[in-house]
């Protein structure tokens, strides 16, 4: 058991190191100078003022140091938990900016991933057993899973928010409210959350439903199901075993899906101007903000690796074959 997890941990740490290095490199391949861009956005200042601002920001962000030194500084700060200062935020610490945005993104991602996974699997399992459901509702699942996140977001925004005025058009909470622990604020928060959540939920729901339906059909036609049937076991028991076996690829799929969903949430947040991490990434790209991009990607890397690790543990818990293999086979 320890060896199993030990090896896993080592793999994750190596992945983290490589990913972090790539994360540091990529923004610096972007053409353009972030400080020049930032200063040029202040219209109407004199060249002397511009020069003063350029000098100030270059010193502040340490961009005047040679690249290897910047790389070492990056690791040094990372170990101390300092993700640097944001160019887009005019020197606000990156950690502060990310922490302000993270609750919104997590509030979107976690319910969307878990609920769509649960609802999609249940629906897919139901569809595998009822032909009328399979024929009528599952094509919808195909359409949903093929729909791009941002397109669905735009459609929902136009139909439900603009045409029918059922939900707000954009934002995290109403522009006439301040964050307080009141019922009014909470309901407003939820109202703003519904449409971005739906955009993520619906697309993933389709994918899980189709996957589960296929897996259930496959399991129901496998040898052990036929054998149980021949033995006279009740339908419910067969379905229960089939369901459990069908779950395993879905759990793996969940781990793989995480990266896709994060990028999907990025475009959804842009459409709704939802103040989450995705929205911040978009702004960072537009301002050539190396540090904010690095910080956010670091956060995503750690999050995805952590989630994968959790899924690994869940696998051990759920699948007895893995437990046996761990004890006997990891020599």
């Amino acid at each position, binding site marked *: 058991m320890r060896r199993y997890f030990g090896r896993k941990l080592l793999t994750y740490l190596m992945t983290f190191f490589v990913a972090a290095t790539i994360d540091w490199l990529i923004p610096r391949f*972007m*053409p*353009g*100078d972030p400080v*020049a*861009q*930032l*200063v*040029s*956005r*202040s219209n*109407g*200042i*004199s*060249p002397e*003022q*511009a*020069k*003063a*601002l*350029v000098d100030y920001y270059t010193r*502040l962000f340490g961009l005047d140091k040679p690249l290897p030194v910047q790389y070492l500084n990056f690791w040094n700060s990372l170990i101390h938990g300092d993700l640097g200062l944001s160019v*887009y*935020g*005019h*020197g*606000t610490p990156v950690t502060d*900016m990310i922490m*302000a*945005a993270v609750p919104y993104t997590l509030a979107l991602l976690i319910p969307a991933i878990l609920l769509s996974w649960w609802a999609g699997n*249940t629906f897919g399992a139901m569809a595998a057993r009822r032909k009328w459901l399979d024929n009528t509702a599952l094509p919808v699942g195909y359409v949903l899973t093929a729909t791009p996140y941002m397109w669905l977001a735009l459609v929902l925004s136009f139909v439900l*928010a603009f045409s029918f*005025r*059922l*939900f*707000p*058009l*954009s*934002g*995290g909470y*109403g*522009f*006439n*409210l*301040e964050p307080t622990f*009141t019922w*009014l*604020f909470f*309901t*407003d928060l*939820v*109202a*703003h959350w519904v449409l971005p959540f739906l955009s993520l939920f619906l697309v993933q729901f389709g994918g899980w439903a189709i996957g589960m339906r296929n897996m259930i059909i496959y399991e129901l036609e496998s040898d052990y199901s036929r054998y149980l049937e021949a033995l006279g076991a009740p339908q419910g028991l067969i379905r229960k075993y089939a369901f459990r076996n069908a779950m395993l690829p879905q759990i793996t799929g969940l781990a793989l899906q995480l990266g896709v969903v994060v990028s999907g949430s990025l475009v959804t947040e*842009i459409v709704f*101007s939802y*103040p989450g991490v995705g*929205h911040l990434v978009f*702004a960072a790209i537009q*301002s*050539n903000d190396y540090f904010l991009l690095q910080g956010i990607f670091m956060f995503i890397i750690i999050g995805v690796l952590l989630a994968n690790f959790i899924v690994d543990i869940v696998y051990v818990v759920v699948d007895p074959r893995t437990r046996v293999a761990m004890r006997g086979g990891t020599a």
Partner: protein
Amino acid sequence: MHLGRYRVLALLAAASIVASACGSSSATSTVAPSTGTTTATATPAAAASATGLPATDTTVYPRAETLYTSGKQWGAPSTWNPFDGNSAMGVVGLQYETLFLYDPIKDAYTPWLASGGSWDSGKTTYTINVRQGVTWSDGSAMTAADVAFSINIYQNAALGSTLFTFVDKVVANGNDVVVTFKGTPAYQEWMQALYNMPIVPAAVWTPLNTADILKSLNMKGIGTGPYTYKTAAQDRMVWVKNPTWWATKALGLTVAPTYIVDIVNSSNNVALGQLLAGGLDLDNNYLPGIAQIVNGGYGVTTYFAAAPYMLGGNTAWLIPNTQKKPLDDAAFRRALAEAIDPNNVVVKDYGNIVAVADPTGLLPVWTKYIDAAQVKSLGATFNTAKAKADLAAAGYKLGSDGFVTNKDGSAIKLNLEVPDGWSDWMAAETLIATDAKAAGININPTHPDYGTVVNDRNGTSTAAPIFDLVINNDVQIGNTPWVYYDYIFRQPQIAAGAARNRNYEQYDNKDAWALVQKLDQTPVDDLATMKSICSQLQKIQLTNEPVIPLWYNGEWSQVNNSVWTNWPSDKGAQVQPATWNGYWQMGAIYMLTNIKPVKAS
């Protein structure tokens, strides 16, 4: 089965949350508020004010007392330092004020924090009369010492100001501040400074006046202005009315909205949606198709009821890199100017919400400085045939592909760059390229991302500017056309890099620069001398075409009249309708004192 029951219950629970959210929040969100629900949500706040809760402490803003704006903030508000050009919307103007206001339409200076100002007989000493009875938002009095400090702070090298290249000493003397100059004062720049320098409390800023002055975020700043900081978030900036604003007693002015909520720009379609739904009152973004919307019965209006709908805020110029062949040849630039039809862009791209620029490029407010007779004889006008003839006469032969070549026979292909995502300029450059190609000039319209355009145009510390053509409109309207001529003719050339924001075309003309400096040193009320110098500058500009004026980019402003009315217009109060930096002190503050709520709150 039991799974199914739980599922149904969960769905019902979710549905009930959503339903209750819709019910109580549809009136408080950015969706259009209806009359009935507005009063319903106003109840919590009304009850709050009935119990005496001051506006600074309320957390729900009543719709009838709140002004929603957008258009200035392109990122989250992150600094409230009035000396930082990137400070949040309204820091200078709503929170900090200036000594004078300047009205570009009337060309008049209004005493504001100064009660007056005058030159001595020799015009070498300027005395500022500091207004009495002005208080800071913390209750202390504003004194002449504060004013002197606020001007002297520009000696701080970290602010990069050129003020003290011509200002000698600034000393407080009783209720006045006396300013002496080195040699001949730069009158034009000084008058510009008078309406742009924020006045700050010396008590707060003396310890901050170091090389790190730009580091202080100054979040809950103390100013003299009509608004103070309420709250800010990643997507908004909120100001609350300052009940002790000096102008109420001194000038009888009151700002109407209790709260101003400035919404950070996300995209133009979101802004348009909010404006139409009634969630935005004033929008200073460029909204394509606004001409149709104004006439479409949505309750949205602009400064002018018909074309050009918008005031001109700056000129969009076509900037050639005069260090590159064939753009180093004035004859070629002239032909290029004649080949382009800005009217095409005005009609097809903007739908008439901008206007074609005068051949001098000077904004309509500076018409009196334009030598009209000279423009008629020397100015370039759109004429494809003439462009072709001029090219041939200058020695550019037509190649087999229909495009002219360099004098040495090499092909000419000019890249025209605009930032990606600036949809109006992206459409404009395609029209310009088509016009130029009809005259034989091969222009290739491109739209790299903003950072690349800046790098190509400014150059970097290791490379000279590599652009061929760009469109640029950096310099805004101001109190004097000197700002434009400084932008065109600045000498010496600023080193390539991020600080380079004048004379992008790298045009060297010592005579022109001498005239520009002479203009700077002309008193602003000496109209005759200013006109004479401008006429000479225009002659150089029209014959050499170092930059080619295209159209007057609009001071984009569209308003929704459902909650607030009596907005600036050419038929009503003729004040600037923009929340952009620099416009509050050009009279936009009167917009806030003029508007009235549609319903009495």
